Structure formats: structure tokens, C-alpha cells
């Protein structure tokens, strides 16, 4: 930092062009994140295996630790191999599909919204009951995916949710939480 303030405009210029290019490098090599995650997973599995109390009734060379150690080591190796592959220019091909348009950049807002809606439903299912949480899940997901029919979507969601509730709870005998009005009405 101190160096830059002392130096001439040329250096500052270089730094300016360097930053976007580093960002681009990181974006192009974002797959290294996968490698890092595999590494973390491997360390996690190995730690869990090594801190496990070994039971004395084990017979033979293979105990409760063996397979986790093999899997953990495998994860470390594959993390390293993947990193090398990415640095050499290898790229995982993103999955294509009929509904998928890869020419556009990923729409993170939709993904986060969708995951949030799902998580919300998981949280609300106990206090508000299945029909409410289910309807919110369906409507929320449809909304996140671009449906804006406010006069139709809530009704579709509600009917679907209540029908599913009735089928499971009343016909199949799988108890689902009914909501705050159960027992009040």
C-alpha cells in the first residue's frame, strides 16, 4: 500500500487494470470453490473419524473408522485433482436442459427467493399448519419463478394445499398439522 502511494501513475494504472482482471480470473476459476468445499468436507470426515471412540468389540481390520478414513482421504485427493484440473483450464460443463437458458447469467435472486420460500415453509409448518405453509410454498415458488397472476395463484395454491391435506390427513391417515384454528372451530 505504502509503495503504491509513493510510486508513479503508471503503477496505479496497472493496479486499476489488475483488479478487474483478477476478478475475472476468480470468476473463471470459481470452480476452485468446489475444490475447497471438497477439501473442507474431507477434513470434516477425517476429523469425525479420528475423534471417534473405537469400540473394543471390533473384529478384523475394518472398524467403524476405516471407511470414513478412506472416504475422507478420497475427498482430499479428489479436491487436489480437481484444483489442478481447473488451473489447467478444465471446466465442468453446466447442465443444459429444455427450460434452461445458459446464455443468460445465473439469476441468483430467483434461487435465493426459492430457497427462502422453501425454508420459510419448513419453519411455518408447525405453528401455522400444513395447509397455510403448503399454500405459501406453492404461491411463493410460482411467484419466484415469474408468475404474477395475483387473482389466480393464491387460489390455486390454497386449493392444492387443502386437497393434499385432505388426502393425506383424512384418506391416508398421515397426520399433518392443521393450523391454529384446529379445535377452535
Amino acid at each position, binding site marked *: 500500500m505504502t509503495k503504491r502511494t509513493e510510486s508513479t501513475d503508471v503503477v496505479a494504472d496497472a493496479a486499476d487494470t489488475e483488479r478487474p482482471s483478477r476478478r475475472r480470473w476468480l470468476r473463471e476459476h470459481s*470452480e476452485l470453490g*468446489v475444490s475447497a*468445499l*471438497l477439501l473442507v468436507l474431507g477434513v470434516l*470426515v477425517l476429523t*469425525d473419524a479420528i475423534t*471417534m471412540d473405537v*469400540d473394543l468389540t471390533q*473384529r*478384523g*481390520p*475394518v*472398524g*467403524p473408522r476405516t*471407511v*470414513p478414513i478412506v*472416504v475422507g482421504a478420497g*475427498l482430499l485427493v*479428489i*479436491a487436489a*485433482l480437481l484444483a489442478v484440473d481447473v488451473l489447467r483450464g478444465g471446466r*465442468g*460443463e*453446466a*447442465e443444459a*436442459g*429444455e*427450460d*434452461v*437458458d445458459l446464455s*443468460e447469467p*445465473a*439469476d441468483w435472486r430467483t*434461487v435465493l427467493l*426459492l430457497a427462502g420460500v*422453501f*425454508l420459510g415453509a*419448513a*419453519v411455518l*409448518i408447525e405453528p401455522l399448519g*400444513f395447509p397455510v405453509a*403448503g399454500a405459501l*410454498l*406453492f*404461491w*411463493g*415458488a*410460482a411467484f*419466484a*419463478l415469474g*408468475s404474477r397472476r395475483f387473482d389466480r395463484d393464491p387460489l*390455486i*395454491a390454497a386449493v392444492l*394445499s387443502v386437497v*393434499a391435506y385432505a388426502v*393425506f390427513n383424512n384418506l*391416508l*391417515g*398421515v397426520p*399433518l398439522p392443521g393450523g391454529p384454528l384446529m379445535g377452535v372451530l
Partner: protein
Amino acid sequence: MDALNSLLDGFGTALTPVNLLWAALGVLLGTAIGVLPGIGPAMAVALLLPVTYGLQPTGAFIMFAGIYYGAMFGGSTTSILLNTPGESAAVVAAMEGNPMAKAGRGAQALAAAAIGHFAGGMIGTTLLVALAPTVADLAVDIGAPDYFAIMVLAFIAVTSVLGSSRIRGLASLLIGLTLGLVGLDQMTGQQRLTFGSLHLADGIDVVIVAVGLFAIGEALWVAAHLRRTSGEAIPVGRPWLDGGDVKRTWKPWLRGPFIGFPFGAIPAGGAEIPTFLSYVTEKRLSKHRDEFGKGAIEGVAGPEAAASASAAGTLVSMLTLGLPTTAVAAVMLAAFQQYGIQPGPLLFEREPELVWGLIASLFVGMVLLLALNLPLAPLWAKLLRIPRPYLYAGILFFAAVGAYAVGGEAIDLVILLIIGLIGFGMRRYGLPVLPAVIGVILGPNAEQQLRRALQISDGSVTGLVNTPFSVTVYVIVALLLAWPLLRKPVAAAVRKRGQTPS
């Protein structure tokens, strides 16, 4: 020919109008419930158990058989159309079926699956009639070392579904193996990767993993890249298989059952491993190998026939030994006991009418399933016409219902979402999803059988190779591994021999 006469009597029982009605009802209900993601045949049979309380035992079991086959087929339907397997045995169907559906050949994929189920059920049930006592005796001889050898073979086979990048395929397999480690160690009861949570003690269910990776992962992935310029709707296409399709599928239809049936009959078999092995076999034998992964119809036909024949194999062990080899069989066994009937060696003598009625109704059920589902295939395929937001919202909704209904715990939904996010990441970075699911299925099985074999032999490694069966399998494994090296000399020798006479 005693069996044949008994079977004819059985048809007499099964073909009464009332029992036909129960079979049809079972097939319909089973299919309807089987299509829900996360609700497989075992759950379907368990859920519909109370429906049959009012029936006579024969009627009830005829209905069960219908539910079982129907649920297996239903699971494949969503697998093919929506890339959302309803159960773990239907995972493989998604591999080729879904690309077919996306290319507008959904109806053909469904027809190939339906006929595959029909062929598998017919051949499987015929084998059941002809071989039941023999198979049951053989099944008992298969022990832990043999299972482990089969697992090794299956692991070798995984290499052919790793996709274009070996490293990424292996990474996916290892993710699956890691997920499979979660839970209590089955041999010593030690907790592994549970982080002290009792909820994880029984591990993460394969169905949750499959639904999470496929259905939730798919929905999130589509959400990230949804085609905003609404492309034209996928054409539903012609509902029927043409000559070319049939030419490609008749062999897989006939091969699949012979892979599926034995696995169903052995105590630790099930339907997942044979569907997967059938897929790999078809891929190896196909003349259209380059189409695999992009919608090769053989990859739907073979595994589906294997799945259905495995269901027939399951009934062999259950009826003749009282030995439940899968969760469905365990539920059916419990149902038998509700009626005061104990399946086992004495069942054929004690309740001939029920057993042969049940077996005959398996044939009838298969015909009904085909008759119902072939015409329905184009209708099912129209599911893809539902506007995208509703379609994927529906997938998320039903996946949530399925996951929640199993245990009634909201935490299951959170686990499902986490696995879904993993599935999303895997799609983003080109990690194939199938090896992960195979890892979850194979890993715990392989470990358990390995450790059990060693435990039985009191820790001696020879306990792994002390049966003729396991040795045979290892020889096959060795040949498969050495094949790339042997291929040239063998081909040369063959050519040479071809030349000498001339």
C-alpha cells in the same frame, strides 16, 4: 405340473369380478401415490394398508400386489417426465427418460417404461412360479462375502456413469459416500457425522437424497436459468413406439428381468442395484452408445424391466421363506400377520388359494397396469404443458409433502433443502448427480457386508473369498478391469483363427 394346476386355480380366484376390481383399484391407487416424490412403494403400501382392512385376505393381497407394481411404475413416471424420482429404484429411469421427455419423446419413454414393467413383471412372475422353491434355497446360500463381491462389481460399474469428466464424477461419488456415512454405525452403534443430533442417527434416507438432488436441485437450477423468452411448448409427440424404437428396446426388455429377479430374491438385494446394473449393461451393449445421457430409449427399457422383475423376486423370498428382502416386503409381511397368516415354508400348504390367487393376480395386475398406462402415457406427457412456474412450484410442493409426511418433522425439509442446494451446485459445476445417489445406496451396503463378512470369519480376511460365488464375481471383476489390456491380443487371436482356415 402341480404348480400349473394350482396357478390355473389361482386365476379362477383372481379373475372373479370383485378381485379384478381390487387389482385395478390397487394399480390405480398405487400409481397415483407412487408419482408423489418421496413416496415410494413401501410408503404407498403402508399408507394404503388401512384401506384394505375391510377386505377378505385374498382381496386385500390382490390389491396390495396392484399397489406395489403401480407405485413402482408411478415413481418412474415422474422420474421420466420431471426428473423427479418418486423413489430410489426410479432414479436410473431419469437418466435417459428425462432427456427423452425434454426432447418431446416423453410418451415414448413412458411407453418403453410401461412395457418394460410389463415384461419384467411377466417374466419375473413366471420365474416365481417355476423356480420359487429353488430360488429360495439358493437365496439362503448367499452370504455377506457374496454381497460384498457384488458391491465391488457395482462400484466398478459406477465408472461408466461418471460422465465426461472422471474427476467430477468421482467427486460426486465421494459426496454420495459421505452422505451415506451419516448415522449410527450399524455394527457397533457408534455415531458418525451426526454431530450429536439424534435426528441424523438413522442416516439420511436415500429417497430424501434422491428427491433433494434431483427434484429440488433441478427446480433451483431451472430457477437460476429459466428461459424468460417462453420457448414453444415441448411437443407431446406421437404416443406410440415406432419400429425403430421397438427394435432397440425388445432386447433390453427381455434382459432386464434376468438382472432384476435374482436381486429381488436375495435378502439384501432390492431394486436399486439391479436397475443400475441393467443401465450399465445396456449402455455397454447398445449400438447407440453415444446417445446415452441424451435420451437413449434402451436406458429406460432395461432398468424398468429389471425393477419390476425385482419386485417379483422379492415375493419369492417373502412367500416361501417368510423373509422380507425389501421394505415393501416387510410391510406386506406385517399385513399378512394382521390377517393371522404367517408367510413361510408352510404357507403354500396352508393357504394355497390365497398364494396362488396372489400369484395369478400379479399376472392380472401387470396386464391392467399396461392397459391403463399405455393409453395414459400421452396424457401424463401433457403434464409438461403446465406453465413452468406452476410445474416447478408443484414439484417443490409435492417434494415437501413427501418428505414431511414420512416422519412429520420439519427438520426433514431443511435437510431436503440443503441436499437440494448441493444438487444445484453440482449442476452448476458439471458434477453428475447419479454417482452421488449410487454412492448413498452402495456405500453403506458395501461397508456393512464387508464388516459383517469379517465379523463372521472372526476377523480373518479369507472370510471375503471363501465362497465359490464371491470368487466367481471377483474373477469377473478382474476380467472387466483387465479387458482394456486383453482386448488387443484377444482380437488379434480371433482374427488369426479366422484367417487360418482360408
